[in-house]
């Protein structure tokens, strides 16, 4: 692409660095911004700068937050003896959207994958062990992706926590709601049968 302006080109280059944005989309976004009032564009760039400089990671659960400790960890109504272990903030948002969970979280910041250079020390596992050792926590729920990396991480955390006085559970895996049995893949279905649950416990309150 040839540009008539160096400023235009550098703005397009920056947008094109974003995930999922190619150079054509980048150009469209830049031209759109150019058509907006100057104040609006300033607001846009200011919000980006302050995001980068102002954001904090909650020092308890490592979730993204504006304060030193996030809103979920400070909320008085929440059950602090129940901790849900997730990969990143997207999972926190997904679980929050269910309105089913009243405990707190622990954000690992990834899953163990030596091939991608991510080992246990790159994740927030040591702080999790400290939190559990402190004694207030009665149960941890492992809510990680059903991939090989997720399983490895679950197993690793289990090994680190199994000698501490805490209940360790993992989210159920199986048939999706509204899903027809015949369309479920063999591995999921096989596991669903192997790890079946008593019907009474599925009669939800």
């Amino acid at each position: 692409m040839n540009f008539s302006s160096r400023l235009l080109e550098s703005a397009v280059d920056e947008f094109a660095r974003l995930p999922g944005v190619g150079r054509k989309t980048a150009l469209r976004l830049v031209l759109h911004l150019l058509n907006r009032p100057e104040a609006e564009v300033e607001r846009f760039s200011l919000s980006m700068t302050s995001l980068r400089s102002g954001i904090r990671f909650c020092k308890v659960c490592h979730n993204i937050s504006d304060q030193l400790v996030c809103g979920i960890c400070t909320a008085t109504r929440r059950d602090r003896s129940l901790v849900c272990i997730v990969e990143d903030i997207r999972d926190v948002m997904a679980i929050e959207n269910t309105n089913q969970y009243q405990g707190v979280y622990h954000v690992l910041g990834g899953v163990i994958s030596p091939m991608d250079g991510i080992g246990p020390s790159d994740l927030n596992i040591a702080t999790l062990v400290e939190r559990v050792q402190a004694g207030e926590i009665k149960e941890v729920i492992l809510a990680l992706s059903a991939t090989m990396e997720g399983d490895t991480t679950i197993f690793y955390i289990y090994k680190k926590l199994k000698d501490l006085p805490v209940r360790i559970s993992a989210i159920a895996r199986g048939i999706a709601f509204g899903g027809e049995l015949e369309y479920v893949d063999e591995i999921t279905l096989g596991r669903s049968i192997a790890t079946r649950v008593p019907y009474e416990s599925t009669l939800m309150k």
Partner: protein
Amino acid sequence: MYLRKLSLLNFKNCAEAEITLSPTVNAFTGDNGAGKTNLLDAIHYLALCKSYFNPVDTQQIMQGTEFFMVQGIFERAEKEEQISCSLKKNQKKQFKRNKKEYERLADHIGLFPLVMISPYDTSIIMEGSEERRRFIDTIISQTDNRYLDGLILYNKVLANRNSLLKQISETGRYDPSLLEIYDDQLVETGQRIFGKRKKFMETFGPVFRKHYEYITGKAEDAGLTYDSALLHEDFAGLLKRSAERDRALERTTAGIHRDDLTFLIHGMPMKKFGSQGQQKSFLIALKLAQYSYLLDQKGFKPLLLLDDIFDKLDDKRTRKLMQMVSADDFGQIFITDTSRQRIERIFDEINVPVTVFDIAAGSCISHDEPR
């Protein structure tokens, strides 16, 4: 099961061709570079979704053109099945059965089993153990569709374990519990693959010996054994014992990824002590054993593709071989050779009808009725 019709478009050196095949013996004859082997490869494509010779799909496209297409009409279980495979440059390979595209190519593999015997097979004897593992893995995965998934999982765990070993030596941080997790995963999948390979070799070995004795007329004594450290020790113990060495070498030194097959002739390694003809006989026996195994597992006859089979074999072995494959145990056969006269003479001698196709410069194909 047999292939009734084959049509090609821009496949390698063949611009366009359509041929109707005989359910028994088909021969492709022509000069060097005419495109005889390409026809076999096209059939291989239809059966196994890939080339036998070249793993790069785009290189199968005829020079100067943008796409290739291979189509075949099979008769299978008294039903007509149309298989077509096409590839456009920079696009995903399309693979269809009866005009319906496959979601997973793996679902196709094994439906139309095929055995190819080619001069390139010498790599099974000459190259490293990887070739020999691939040989048995290909056969087992054609009859057991879970096998390949297990192998992929094993390799993923292995890659993670090796990266971890590397990181341990780079950073000096050693976390035994993480390594243990990978060991457990490796043992679980590895043990299962080992079990399948061992069971396979128990059936495959005797079949191989039978074929080898037939081709050579019991003139030679050949050995084929499965060689795995897991035969002598369980995998978990093996990993534990090699843990020190693994950390020093920064890779996993024991496991089913080191399995091998041992080929012997008169008790000596085939690679060093076998003549070219002996090696070829050995390979043909291996492939025929693959054929018999597939036939036994599938319950119907796979296709048999013989590329340049007469090279390096003496007349006695050639005749025996042709007699054998034309007999009732074998179904549809494809043979390539440079000499039409030789093909006609051999099949005249054993009194078997053969359909001969003359191949010239890929495109022009003429054919005679079975004689």
